[in-house]
């Protein structure tokens, strides 16, 4: 190849351009190429792959500078910026016209050249603050692309245009725009705006208010690609406005955790899925941190040492939140690609939905989707029929918040339904061995189809039995519900996996039938809607029922009081029981069972004092008993009503399940037909194969015969010759 590679102590610059610092160092490698062109090619690939050539600071791409300066320690911003800012902070904050007045042009140039040559010139007391300020501005101005990249310029201007209309909303937008900037740009802009904010706080002495700084600094940071006067002057005012906001609202705009109130757009304007997913919003800030390791670490602890530690800490943060165990590799890879994390992190399922929203919503949606907790993402992923583990993990945390939501919205029947779900989940396991053909529980974990099967045949029947039992045997139902409750409590821990599968399968149902039955409602909302709407109604009705009930009780008791004024003891006995049970019933779902448990035992309690007061008044006792009976009757009626309502809801669910069952059957029959067709095809192929083989055998036989005959003839011929 003609490549000779040896250590050279001599400086040879033939064919090597612009790499003086590499070649100047002794012990550099010397590559000898056949032709100049070849050498250039080598050099190009070497530059690309092996090291980053130092070609100056001014006019270099920011990312390259930051990357290059990694060797001097982890920094947020280029050395030159850091040095300038530190110097100004030390000496120049009170200087009148800071960043407005010019520095010494010649000295600025000198300093620039020094930095470009890789030196680190120190500013001393003789250095003019304005010179350093000019140097800083020069650096920003000379970036090949301004801090706000050209492609983002228009978005920022639009933001500035809207600022006058709805400030908080637009600030949220602006914030999102900022966080979409490349990491290096974001860091530097953050750094500078923070510093300018500081400078502004001394405006009484330096006369540089935020407005002035914005005027002076804005064009260095925000500028159009087209350098024509029209676009420059056209944007000038908006640039100033924007820059002022960047300086003034620095803290909220660059904060890692979005100020929820200002950043969140009005919920009503958006599609319901995101609004319904509010509870899932809370973990998003930390996720933001996760997704932007560079910014977090570096802006968080500027003094953090070593790049290696940075790496490891990045892994640590990723591992700490391993429930989103997702693309850690990409995380690490990202730091070498200049693109913003979000660009490479948009999970595919989300891409379709945020597109419908305004672009400023990307962040929020991104959080939600990234968490993987959003029902819709679960749906989308589930519909692929292969729930991966990472999806399952977030899933497992899902049922709990939703159950909580139920409990709040639906005090009475919650236990029943929760019991329903948990018992269903519990009995799913039991159903598996009973209907042995359904497949193992492992399969259940792996694919939703098997979960379906279990649901459809085994546990569905189970549930139906549960429901019917609960409905008809009112006396037992209390105990049954109580049991279910206990199951809830016990299985709340163990619920995660099992019920998650049942939940996700339930949520998939509407997705499957979204085309026909629930077309109007978006797929992931529908299940919740279905359940929640009636439930809240039920809750209200129930509350009113309870109130009525209580009123009745009180009326009865008032009557009692009228009848027997001496009977304070008796009143004391049952006053606590009935209203307490009622109120507790409406407040906390858990106590329903208990109230039902000790209500039957109420009469014995009352019987206790009875012998003592027997001679007193049998009438009052009778009235008491009657009243108790009425009370019990009312309670049972209420319970019956409740259970009926519960039954309605469950029936609806059953209907949904049936629908899905039907669909499953349909698909199964389709699959069966397909299998049959395949089998048929296979049989055909076998048949053809056999025929071919027979033909071939026949052919070889004939061939052999012919050959033998030919040989015989030849032999005969030879013999005749």
């Amino acid at each position, binding site marked *: 190849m003609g490549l000779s590679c040896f250590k050279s102590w001599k400086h040879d610059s033939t064919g090597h351009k612009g790499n003086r610092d590499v070649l100047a160092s002794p012990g550099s490698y010397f590559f000898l190429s056949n032709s100049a062109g070849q050498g250039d090619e080598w050099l190009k690939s070497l530059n690309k792959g092996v090291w980053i050539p130092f070609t100056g600071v001014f006019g270099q791409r920011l990312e390259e500078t930051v990357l290059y300066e990694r060797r001097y320690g982890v920094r947020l911003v280029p050395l030159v910026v850091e040095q300038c800012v530190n110097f100004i902070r030390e000496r120049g904050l009170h200087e*009148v016209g800071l960043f*407005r007045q010019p520095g010494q*042009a010649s000295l600025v140039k000198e300093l620039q050249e020094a930095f470009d040559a890789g030196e680190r010139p120190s500013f001393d007391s003789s250095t003019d603050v304005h010179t350093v300020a000019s140097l800083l501005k020069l650096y920003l101005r000379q970036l090949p692309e301004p801090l706000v990249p050209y492609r983002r310029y228009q978005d920022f201007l639009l933001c500035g245009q809207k600022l006058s209309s709805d400030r908080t909303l637009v600030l949220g937008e602006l914030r999102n725009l900022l966080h979409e900037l490349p990491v290096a740009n974001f860091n530097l802009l953050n750094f500078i705006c923070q510093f300018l904010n500081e400078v502004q706080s001394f405006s009484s002495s330096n006369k540089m208010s935020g*407005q002035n700084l914005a*005027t002076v600094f804005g064009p260095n940071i925000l500028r159009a690609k087209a350098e024509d006067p029209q676009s420059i*002057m056209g944007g000038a005012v908006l640039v100033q406005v924007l820059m002022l906001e960047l300086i003034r609202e620095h803290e909220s705009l660059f904060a890692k955790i979005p100020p929820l109130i200002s950043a969140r757009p009005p919920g009503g304007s958006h599609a319901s899925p995101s609004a319904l997913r509010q509870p899932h919003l809370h973990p998003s800030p930390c996720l933001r941190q996760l997704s932007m390791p560079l910014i977090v670490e570096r802006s968080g602890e500027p003094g953090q040492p070593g790049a290696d530690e940075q790496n490891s800490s990045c892994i640590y943060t990723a591992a700490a939140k391993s429930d989103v165990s997702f693309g850690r590799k990409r995380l690490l890879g990202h730091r070498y690609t200049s693109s913003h994390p979000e660009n490479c992190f948009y999970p595919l399922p989300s891409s379709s939905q945020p597109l419908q929203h305004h672009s400023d919503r990307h962040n929020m949606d991104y959080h939600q989707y990234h968490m993987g907790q959003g029902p819709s993402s679960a749906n989308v992923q589930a519909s692929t029929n292969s729930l991966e583990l990472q999806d399952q993990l977030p899933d497992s945390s899902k049922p709990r918040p939703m159950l909580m939501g139920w409990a709040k919205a639906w005090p009475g029947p919650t236990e029943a339904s929760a019991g329903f779900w948990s018992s269903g989940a519990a009995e799913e396991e039991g159903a598996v061995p009973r209907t042995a053909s359904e497949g193992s529980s492992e399969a259940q974990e792996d694919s939703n189809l098997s979960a379906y099967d279990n649901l459809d045949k085994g546990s569905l029947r189970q549930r139906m039995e549960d429901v019917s039992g609960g409905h008809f045997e009112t006396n037992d139902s209390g105990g049954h519900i109580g049991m279910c409750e206990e199951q809830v409590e016990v299985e709340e821990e163990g619920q995660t996996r099992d019920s998650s599968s049942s939940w996700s399968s339930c949520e998939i149902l509407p997705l499957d039938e979204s085309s026909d039955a629930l077309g109007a409602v978006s797929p992931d909302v529908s299940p919740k809607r279905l359940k929640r709407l009636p439930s809240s109604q039920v809750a209200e009705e129930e509350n009113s029922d309870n109130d009525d009930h209580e009123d009745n009780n009180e009326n009865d008791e008032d009557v009692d009081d009228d009848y027997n004024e001496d009977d304070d003891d008796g009143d004391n006995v049952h006053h606590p029981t009935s209203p307490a049970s009622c109120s507790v019933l409406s407040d906390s779902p858990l106590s329903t069972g208990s109230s039902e448990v000790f209500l039957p035992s109420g009469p014995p309690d009352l019987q206790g004092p009875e012998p003592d007061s027997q001679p007193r008044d049998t009438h009052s006792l009778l009235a008491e008993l009657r009243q108790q009976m009425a009370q019990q009757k009312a309670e049972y009626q209420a319970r019956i009503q409740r259970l009926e309502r519960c039954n309605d809801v469950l029936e609806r669910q059953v209907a949904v399940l049936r629908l899905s069952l039907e669909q499953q059957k349909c698909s199964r029959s389709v699959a069966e037909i397909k299998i049959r067709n395949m089998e048929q095809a296979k049989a055909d192929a076998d048949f053809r194969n056999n025929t071919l083989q027979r033909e071939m055998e026949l052919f070889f036989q004939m061939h052999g015969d012919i050959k033998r005959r030919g040989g015989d003839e030849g032999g005969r011929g030879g013999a005749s010759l």
Partner: protein
Amino acid sequence: MPEQSNDYRVVVFGAGGVGKSSLVLRFVKGTFRDTYIPTVEDTYRQVISCDKSVCTLQITDTTGSHQFPAMQRLSISKGHAFILVFSITSRQSLEELKPIYQQVLAIKGTVESIPIMLVGNKSDETAQREVEAKEAEAQATAWKCAFMETSAKTNSNVKELFQELLSLEKKRDMSLSIDGKRSGKQKRADKLKGKCSIM
């Protein structure tokens, strides 16, 4: 943009904070503000007499704090006359004018027929003086232009500055006075707004 022969365009250059806006405002409006506000770019118009007729004197107050080379080039190529302002309290501000002068020279080719005024502003602040009048005069001679010290604050030499500038224009006979019909029309930021709507 079609060339409006009626307009006479004067461009004011200078480093940040030397008092360009103050000079222009003093001349156009007769006021002085003690505020400290950097300019992006403002244009003022004023009717003056020109060749026994009237024309518009268009004064462009440029920004001193940051240079857009493109903007600067445009201003220079469209300008008929230039006022280069420095502050006598800052030698640096005089230094800053050198590249601008070079730019004017490069774009216009020659400065022979172009009215240029070198202006040392803030002449009232004698205590902080850094640039002696002699130095500036020497610089003006080197640049083949006129020199004048002004103070926008005390309104010293401001009107004279513009009068002198117009008198340097040999192609037209211009004068600030138009028989008492002097009407200062400020169209500040109109230009800016017009361009905003283009976007």
